[in-house]
């Protein structure tokens, strides 16, 4: 039981990364019906931006007499990185996706793949092939709760992720822009005719998605303090899986699917040899999709597919 609970805690942390990345992915996917294959690399760049911002703040703080408390540095890092990374997302949308709005969807997907490769190579050229370590912002404290070991990092990660998920939920449900996004997800051909500015909403979607990716990147840096330029690829594809598993146009579904993916992976690694993780995890996903071909919350759609 204790063993199970311990893994549940680990799964919660692992799943919250997936959920955060999948949220950004799912927003773009549901509104513009795009496979944003660059999202994993935007997450990676987010982690690097977080690294840069945190290093700068630490350097500045150490210059002054009174150093800032660590939690404040973490909050500042997250906020500044979100801001910077959202510009990256909007830039990617402007350069790579907007010219291809009316093109076949697969062409835009290829553009995304290529932008991802450019981002990886760019980071590789900037930082070199060596892995860099994220500055330790939180001193690890381990709490023993009846045999279950919980570190404060895990608590922070889960709390921050859940906070941003709830904030996004409120944004999408309560604000005018959120309503525009939902309308766009419903039908993005007709809604612009009603006076909703498609380009603004699309850029905003990319911006928010990338900001969430930056949060995920920094939390990743806090949890596993090693960054390398190729770390985004696998998370990008997992987010792709989670976004679609959750169902088209469903932010709730993406969150759930992200957590589910994390849970499956941790528990498979717990029961079976860890080399079988991908094999069993993807087999389960395959089975879920065979029995529920439209994801958890997706509606079956028979609309004509644009190649």
């Amino acid at each position: 039981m204790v063993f199970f609970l311990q893994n549940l805690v680990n799964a919660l942390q692992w799943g919250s990364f997936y959920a955060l990345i999948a949220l950004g992915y799912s927003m773009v996917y549901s509104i513009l019906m795009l496979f944003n294959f660059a999202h994993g690399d935007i997450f990676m760049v987010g982690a690097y931006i977080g690294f840069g911002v945190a290093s700068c703040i630490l350097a500045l703080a150490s210059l002054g007499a009174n150093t800032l408390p660590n939690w404040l540095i973490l909050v500042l890092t997250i906020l500044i990185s979100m801001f910077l990374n959202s510009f990256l997302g909007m830039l990617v949308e402007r350069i790579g996706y907007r010219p291809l709005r009316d093109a076949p969807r697969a062409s835009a997907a290829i553009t995304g793949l290529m932008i991802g490769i450019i981002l990886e190579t760019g980071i590789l050229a900037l930082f070199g092939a060596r892995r860099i370590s994220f500055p330790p912002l939180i001193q690890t404290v381990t709490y023993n709760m009846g045999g279950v070991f919980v570190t404060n990092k895990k608590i922070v990660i889960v709390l921050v992720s859940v906070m941003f998920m709830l904030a996004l939920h409120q944004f999408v449900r309560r604000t005018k822009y959120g309503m525009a996004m939902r309308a766009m997800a419903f039908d993005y051909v007709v809604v612009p005719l009603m006076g909703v500015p498609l380009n603004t909403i699309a850029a905003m979607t990319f911006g928010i998605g990338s900001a969430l990716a930056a949060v995920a990147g920094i939390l990743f840096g806090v949890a596993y303090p090693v960054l390398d330029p190729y770390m985004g690829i696998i998370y990008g594809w997992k987010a792709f899986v989670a976004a679609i598993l959750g169902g088209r146009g469903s932010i709730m579904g993406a969150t759930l699917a992200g957590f589910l993916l994390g849970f499956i992976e941790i528990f498979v690694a717990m029961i079976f040899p860890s080399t079988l993780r991908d094999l069993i995890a993807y087999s389960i996903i395959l089975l879920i999709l065979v029995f529920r071909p439209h994801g958890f919350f997706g509606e079956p759609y028979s609309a004509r597919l644009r190649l």
Partner: protein
Amino acid sequence: MEKTYSPISPDQSTGRGRIRRWFSGIPVLGWIFGALVAVVLEYYLGDALSEVLGLEKVPALFGVTLILKKPLLLPKCLMFVGLIYVIPISVVAKYLSPLTNRIAGKLIQYPYGVSAVLHLALLYAVFYIWSDVSAYRLLTLKLSLIAVMITLSLNVVNGYMGEFSCSHPGFLALGAYGASVITVLFFVKDKLFGAPLLPPAIGPYLYPVALVLGGLLASVGALVIAVPSFRTRGDYLAIISLAFMFIVKSLIENLEIVGGPRGLSSQPGWSSLLTVFIWTVLCVWIINNFVRSTLGKAANAVRDDESAADAMTVNTRRTKVVTFMFAAFWAGVAGGLYAHVIRYANPGDFGIQKLADVLAMVYLGGLNSVVGSIVGAVGMSILGEALRPLGIYKWIIIPLLLILVMIFRPTGLIAFREFDVREILKPKRRM
């Protein structure tokens, strides 16, 4: 459709129009003759000429790699390429055109297989002599030919049937491992499988059987994707095929009997240029016939509107299963050839990186087009090799080029174009 030029067409006065007029009326046979003369020239005079020009050796890929390493060699490389390739090819093609036209005209009167075989034999001779200069050229050529097969087979699913399938690396892996296990088990002394079960001398004759079995293994794997595709399509199928790819990769990594994550080595080097060439030609020919057959048209109908196709008596299930298995078969054969060219198979080779490569080749060349696939595969392979001296900056330039292609031609360079063998083989009338 034949283009017609009126006598006072404005494009005659331009340089491009003049060049086009000068070269009009040259049949494909003429170009192949020209290329043959050029490669023979290079074979005999290449070393001497490169010495005269002050190059260390004959430039491997038309001097592109050399220029990127030492930009100052640009004029010399241009001179070499001009003297060996451009001038001989254009002169021979131009001045032999009456002769080649007559030959092509004679040949076309026989069943067109005769003409096709003759053209292909000459083309093979060109490749053979060209690749004889260095092992690097030979490897690049083989890998390009295999890339053509892979791209074509993916185009059958993604372009002709319109499913965004991500499973191709999985099929490649199945084919590569299937064929490798057979050849290593039966014909090679290896530390994994021990002594060969059959005398190695008959191995090369049974190699095609091994490739076909690898292809069949891949098509059995395709059933895993084809069956769920009855109930769903589009994005969900993309996930299913992606999951399939990961499952295959992970399965191979966990199978200690085929080497696990260390990979399987000591394949015999039976993928000679002739073998690869013949399989590629077979692949292009059969896929070209497939996409023009009733089944290929049915696949197009499924792409354009599945329910309408169903209403029009197209058996969509059968179409999907057959198309998936057919494409997977060719991917498997290509995988087998690839494993025997590299003489090593590693599960890490058949991951997301490979998927990105293959997708880029298909969408660069163009959807729904056999010629497009050939252009895309050869273009990307040559580009990838030519820009190798740039190091990692290669991976900024190639993606940028692809993004530009996507923005200006969203369906690829040569999309939705038919490929007619007869049209290529027939003699050209002078304009």
